């Protein structure tokens, strides 16, 4: 069994083989050893369907998320974009009755294989939420929290990990004299960057962001966007945003989801309409539904 540190190293080296479970699932060993899974693909989603109880919330999503790119997911409310995002680190497991069918491979490993440890998945695939949610602890303890519970970093090295994470989140200079102060005293934008520092302290492979700037002012938003641009050198980022201009500014690829209505049950479900280079989506989309959405029309 690989140690957490080994796993992190493997991930950082982009090696493809990702020990997420105590024993590799049968299909996984082949995927890990074989050359079949492209190294620049982080997530491969094939015919993903998400259910809440009997209600199918997302239908037949197929897409590849590429390494070290920012992928934006846009679409109207109720189109399933957050549901899909939460599949990427199995956050939906925490919702009773939620389940997913289809294939979701992370570096070639089936994320929904019963032997995969969801806690390890969430360490490798970090998440930042809409509302900054620092723990009611010191700035230092917030960032040190992940490495501490994972036991992945010797205590003597924790200050270095905390500093490095805060630096990568472009926050260190602003809080270096307040590391022992409560994180709750930071501004909203600083709190959100602290949450990003906390997410990257466990050396994840991927950062999921669910509308990370919607509670922030334009200056703080600009800070986060610049930070995302820099983080892209080391991490793969998937962001859900309601702000189309933000998706256009920061992302390399954009997925547009919309909500369709099931004629039989009269229930709404999300579908992926178009997934392409961001420039294409915002200047010359292929699908009329995308065109209507990004130009503010509906029909």
């Amino acid at each position, binding site marked *: 069994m690989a140690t957490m540190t080994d796993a992190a190293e493997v991930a950082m080296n982009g090696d493809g083989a990702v020990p997420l479970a105590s024993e590799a699932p049968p299909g996984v060993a082949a995927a890990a050893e074989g050359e079949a899974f492209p190294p620049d693909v982080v997530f491969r989603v094939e015919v993903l369907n998400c259910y809440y109880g009997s209600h199918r919330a997302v239908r037949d999503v197929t897409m590849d998320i590429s390494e070290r790119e920012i992928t934006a997911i846009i679409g109207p409310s109720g189109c399933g974009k957050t549901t899909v995002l939460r599949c990427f680190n199995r956050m939906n497991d925490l919702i009773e009755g939620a389940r997913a069918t289809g294939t979701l491979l992370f570096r070639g490993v089936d994320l929904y294989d019963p032997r995969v440890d969801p806690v390890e998945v969430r360490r490798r695939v970090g998440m930042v939420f809409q509302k900054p949610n620092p723990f009611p602890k010191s700035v230092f303890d917030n960032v040190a929290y992940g490495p501490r519970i994972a036991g992945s970093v010797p205590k003597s090295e924790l200050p270095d990990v905390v500093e490095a994470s805060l630096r990568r989140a472009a926050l260190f200079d602003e809080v270096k004299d307040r590391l022992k102060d409560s994180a709750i005293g930071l501004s909203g934008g600083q709190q959100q960057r602290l949450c990003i520092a906390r997410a990257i302290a466990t050396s994840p492979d991927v950062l999921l962001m669910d509308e990370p700037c919607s509670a922030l002012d334009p200056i703080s938003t600009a800070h986060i966007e610049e930070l995302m641009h820099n983080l892209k050198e080391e991490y793969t980022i998937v962001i859900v945003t309601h702000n189309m201009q933000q998706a256009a500014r920061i992302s390399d690829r954009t997925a547009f989801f919309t909500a369709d209505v099931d004629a039989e049950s009269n229930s709404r479900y999300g579908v992926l309409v178009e997934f392409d280079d961001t420039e294409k989506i*915002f200047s010359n989309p292929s699908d009329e539904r995308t065109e209507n959405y990004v130009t503010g*029309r509906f029909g």
Partner: protein
Amino acid sequence: MVESLRTPFVDELEEVRVELIRMAGLVIEAIPRCTEALLASDLAAAQEIIDGDNILDDASLALEHHCQQLLALQQPMAGDLRTILAAMTINHELERSGDLVENIAKAMRRVYGIDFGPRLRGLITQMSEEATRLMRFAVDAFADGNSGLAAALDDIDDRLDRLNHQCLALIVGEEGREMGDLMSGVQLALIARYYERIGDHAVNIGERVRYMVDGWRPGQPEESPADQEPDLGAEAADG
């Protein structure tokens, strides 16, 4: 039925389109009027053409400002963005076309009193009609979002190019030399060139219409199978 959630913006975008079509109307109307003045040696009418270009210049500046406002304030996307970008370029093409009409009127004063003769008179009339027709097709393509018509303008323009060559041959030939001195010949050649350039601007407008409608940009491969057929007209046009 597609409705907009951004009614004021959509209304303003429509205003840009209408302003542009109105400008094109000024150009389309000025070309035959200028030709009439030229062939009738009507100095007063030529002065009207020259003064009239100011209206087009003012409209062009106003349209540019309007487009700039929409870009800065409305963050247009996709088809809306392409429409505004196309409108800005087409605006420039129309403004330049207006200048060319003005140039013809000015050149007319420099050859005042010359006897054009029936053949040159006929060629100038034909060039004027072709230039007007091309500009009308270009603005129709814009107004209707007709990328097929827009793409055809380059080939339609071949006829105007041929007329220009015929004009030049006549001017430098014996008949032309009998009309006046070398400077008059240069002015007549420039007049023919101005009509031919108006046609080129119409072709450029067509390219921008294609960008607006399909996102196509000059230099990109053609997608229509019709465009991949051998072009039998190309050789004749080059000759």
